[in-house]
């Protein structure tokens, strides 16, 4: 279907109906689980756009107003003057910049003749607010991308979280103290008090002794935790370990992505945290879409920051003078 569409666009004879768009959309990672009504919404919001090879699809210097879901073809994304990514079919182009509201926008050029579904950024926000399933699908896709990048770079410390001093209270935290803790985290800092209250009510406190194993590789990820005291260490098999301190939400990305654990997690010291069940979190997102939107923006920010760091590293490597030739 996609190839035929691209062919007919090249020939200028394309007429793409809503069903075709829905069918194509359903093959995108973020939309696989959408139901018929949600697909209908997405199909109605998109328009097709054809970019001959060499066309500039996004110009840098201005926030992204429309982003593209590539149906067929290939586009190159430039960072620091170099190609940082080549995106093929079923990739989103400009979605990250749209979600983060990056004022610099992105620079992207069609490498091949490219057919894309175009989506208005303002529409996207409305659609997410009104159709929880779509928000959830996009959030899961974004979390999966971030997870893959973390696995590649081992930068598992999520950029959107921040450290904070430990909470020095021996007794179990009250609901209000949990709310205060949540309010200080990046992901829930902008949430409404009502949403924080609902979340705090559904997050039991958990404690581990130093040396306890919290989870192991391959376990299901239906929960994560917000650490407010102590430290934990994450040990991916065959790779260097990394750690988290108070203020971090650990395992949240995997939980949102719905992918199994890829590292073991151990308590290094006595540790205390509040436990987020994925279903409870999603219930809060459904009733308070603004919380989900902030989280999605943070996920996009995390992906963007990692891609940026990778591009900067790549550029530094390319600019490094070659080692002197040995004889």
């Amino acid at each position, binding site marked *: 279907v996609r190839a035929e569409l691209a062919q007919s666009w090249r020939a200028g004879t394309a007429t793409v109906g809503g*069903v075709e768009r829905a069918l194509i959309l359903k093959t995108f990672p973020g939309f696989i689980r959408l139901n*018929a009504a949600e697909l209908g*919404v997405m*199909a109605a919001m998109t328009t097709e756009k054809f970019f001959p090879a060499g066309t500039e699809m996004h110009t840098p210097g201005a926030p992204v107003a429309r982003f593209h879901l590539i149906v067929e073809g290939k586009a190159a994304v430039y960072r620091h003057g170099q190609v940082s990514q080549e995106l093929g079919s079923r990739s989103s182009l400009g979605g990250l910049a749209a979600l983060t509201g990056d004022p610099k926008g992105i620079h992207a050029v069609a490498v091949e003749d490219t057919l894309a579904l175009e989506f208005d950024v*303002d*529409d996207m926000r409305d659609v997410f607010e009104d159709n929880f399933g779509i928000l959830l699908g996009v959030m899961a896709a974004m979390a999966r991308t971030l997870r893959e990048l973390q696995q590649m770079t081992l930068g598992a410390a999520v950029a959107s979280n921040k450290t904070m001093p430990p909470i020095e*209270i021996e007794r179990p935290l*009250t*609901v209000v103290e949990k709310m205060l803790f949540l309010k200080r985290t990046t992901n829930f800092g902008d949430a409404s*008090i009502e949403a924080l209250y609902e979340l705090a009510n559904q997050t039991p406190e958990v404690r581990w002794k130093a040396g306890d194993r919290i989870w192991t590789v391959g376990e299901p990820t239906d929960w994560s935790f917000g650490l407010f005291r102590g430290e934990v260490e994450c040990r991916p098999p065959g790779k260097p370990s990394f750690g988290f301190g108070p203020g971090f939400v650990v395992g949240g990305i995997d939980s949102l992505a719905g992918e199994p654990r890829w590292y073991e997690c151990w308590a290094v010291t006595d540790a205390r945290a509040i436990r987020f069940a994925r279903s409870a979190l999603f219930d809060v997102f459904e009733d308070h879409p603004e919380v989900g939107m902030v989280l999605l923006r943070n996920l996009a920010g995390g992906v963007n920051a990692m891609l940026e760091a990778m591009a900067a590293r790549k550029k530094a490597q390319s600019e490094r003078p070659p080692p002197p030739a040995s004889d």
Partner: protein
Amino acid sequence: MLTRWLGIRPEDRRDTGVAFATLTAMLCAHSMLETARDALFLAKLPPSRLPLAYIAIAILALFVSRVNQVAAQRFARRRLLSMTLVGGGAVTAIFWYLTQHREPWVLIALYVWTGVLATVVVVQFWLQLADVLDVTQAKRLFGLIGAGGLVGATLGSATAGALLTRMDARAILLVSAIIQASAAFVPLGFSHTKEADAPKRRRHAAPQAPARSVGAMLRDRYLLRLFVMSLVGAVLFTGIDYVFKAKVVSEAHARGWELGGFFARYYAVVNATALLVQLFIAPRLLRAMGVNRALLVMPFLLLLGSTGFALTAGLVPALLLKGSDGALRHSVHRTASEILFLPLSRPVRDRFKAFAEAVGQRGGQALASVVILGATTLAAPPQFVAWGVVVLAVGWVASIVGHEKLYLELFKKQLRDGTLDTEVDLPDLDLASFEVLVQGLSSEDDREVIAALEMFDSYGKVDLLPALILYHPSHEVVLRAFEVLGKSTRQDVRRLTGRLLKHEDGEIRAAALRAMAASSPDEELLRKHVFDESSAVRCTALVALIAHGLVEGDEASATLRAIVGGPNPDERLALARTLRYLPVESYGWVAGELVALDEPGLAGAVARSLAAAPHERHLDTLVDMLQNREARADARVALVALGDVAFDRLCATLHDRDAAPHIRRHLPRTLSRFPIAAASDVLLAALVEEEDDAVLFKILRGVGRMRAQDPTMPIDRGAIVGVAKRILEGAVRALHWRLTVGQVVARQQEAMTPAAELLVAYLDEKRDLALERLFRLLHILEPAQELRLIYEGVRSADPKARASSLELLTHVAPPSIRDGLLPLCEETPPRARLRNVRAWYDPPGRARFAELWARLEAAPGDPKLQSELGVLYADTLREMLHDRSEALRGIVAHHVAELGLEELRTQIVSAAKSKSDVLAEISDDAMGVLGMRGMEPSGAG
């Protein structure tokens, strides 16, 4: 002071001041110009030339307004007004020079110039105001601004009169020209146009309406009505003026009155009345009656007055007739008429207003003059003209009645522009689309195949799926195909399923076995698979044997218990998937036990199975699964399929305040999926009685959804308005509490605890929460009124959209809550909001706090007052502990504990005995903190 008496808010001051000053100066100069013009014209030429001058004014004004429109595209409106005033002053000065010989053509030209200039500057002025003020501000401020016109006109007439005693009328032209040119600097003080600053949606923004032709404009029903109102009004006013003057002149002759003195006294009274009406009555009338009903006031009074005069030819009706005109035309009527232009798009407003002013106003005057000239020529008595006025007044009233609907529709259109319908469904499946789906099945990309499969399912076209899809090389595709085709009883599917029992993939064999076991159980085959290497296949075979009675009694129960309690989650998942085939009478317990294990994916699989074969034995499990996100949708399907028995159980659980809150919260939306007639009664009753705010919110969503589906659904309007009133009063109380807490923590640093911060933030948020609930209630009351659109407009950052929404809300909100709702929607500081809403509902404790605060301001260090403040703060917290919101009570309980307010311990203890688990936990928490106070720091902040 300004706000209380004149309705001027701090944000209005600049534009109101500039507008008032501009109109005062403009009308002062214009009155002087008119006085000089009349004196010069009538001294030399007969009044019979006046109709000709009116016609010339109408034609020229049309031309000049077109020029004005072109200029408006090049210059900012305030600059253009300024330039027009300077140019007007210059031309008037030229007339001062030209009139030295008083040649007739010059005098006629002066007369026409005066009319044309007035038309252009007045149009420019009101268009400028329409740009900087929105409809809410207009209702508040147009009256006051219009008063500037009365003040200016009175000042101009008085000055001209005084000058005429000392100098020639010609000299007044020069004075007027100087005032006009000097006034040119005032409009530069207007703020920038709001429309230019307003954020615009890119793709869905309505295209800027082109400036339409006159014909096209008059084909628009709204514009046509505006034009008729303008034209009829002008004819009517001219006719009334004639009737009044004719009667007064005849009475003066009969009774020997001195005309000048009579007119001076009469106009003084009328002008004073007009000023009072303008300042104090017009804004209130507009707010109370709305624009369209306020517009009816004057025509109705004119109708009464003209009928009275036509029947009696008496002086009193004539005086009342002209008095109504004088007192209301430039106040209520002008203000309301100008507001009618506000919902128009800027280009249409620009073009149409100029046209209405030139042709409607001036053309109407010319037309009336010709008719009156004809009547006087035929020696018809003034009653003849009065009857004409009666007929026109009736026509005028008729043109206003029914206008409201068109007016509101324009505001709705404004709101719709730039919004997006995000509730659409899949497009219909036509032949071409169907071909696309079939093509999708043969794609090389598995994801595309699965997408096509699911879309066949979504369209209910599973019977058209080729059965060979079960032989697809992809594991995922085959499993998904089994799920989709599992609902089918097709023979070809059964045939192909048999072969898949030998598939190398265990999951596919299990899926095939499930499908086979459902339709044609084969004991030998099933027993053979009990020894399969795959645990999923083994389990499926065992369950199928039990399901078909081939394994029974204790052996079957023991097998199932071994799976449920065993170490293998894959077996449990397989059991959950085959649950639908087990005899419920004997094995109904399995579903509940599987769900209780709380294993990932298990509840979802159980729910899917139960949805495929619902049974009332599973009612408890199904209701319980409503709190599980992954099981909820299928549990709802099963409950709805069970019908009355499930409905009754859900109702009972909704009424049971001891039921788990996390189940109760999902009941309203579950109930709303049942037939509307039954569900609506239950939910509407629960709406009134429900105490849990979160459940109330869900009920609102459920009822709203049903009302949208069936707007004829019967509702108890009184009860719903009662709930709205309760919510609104709650929001006002929260506003008062917000101000109290804010002021107290600002003064008493020890009260500024971490929970106090949360408390303030939450009380701020209460307004948004209340508004959302109130708009949902309004939607239930008026499902056809596009309340969602209005709600989004109220929350919009665009001031014009907000104003449009408020205007619509004025008409939609029930009168008993309108005056509470509108101030709450306005973007004003909390203190101003409370002041504006106080007349509707004065929250308990507000007056006491205000009085104490005033004393504290006077004596800030008084320890007695400080102590009183502490008591009052504790009382306020006590009130909050009785609020319906669990979140608020929880935060307050914690704050009380932080402050160590022992006197509130009783309230917290009573909350701890609450039947709600959650609240009891929060209160226990607070009690814990109270008990431990002093031992360790409280609060995570």
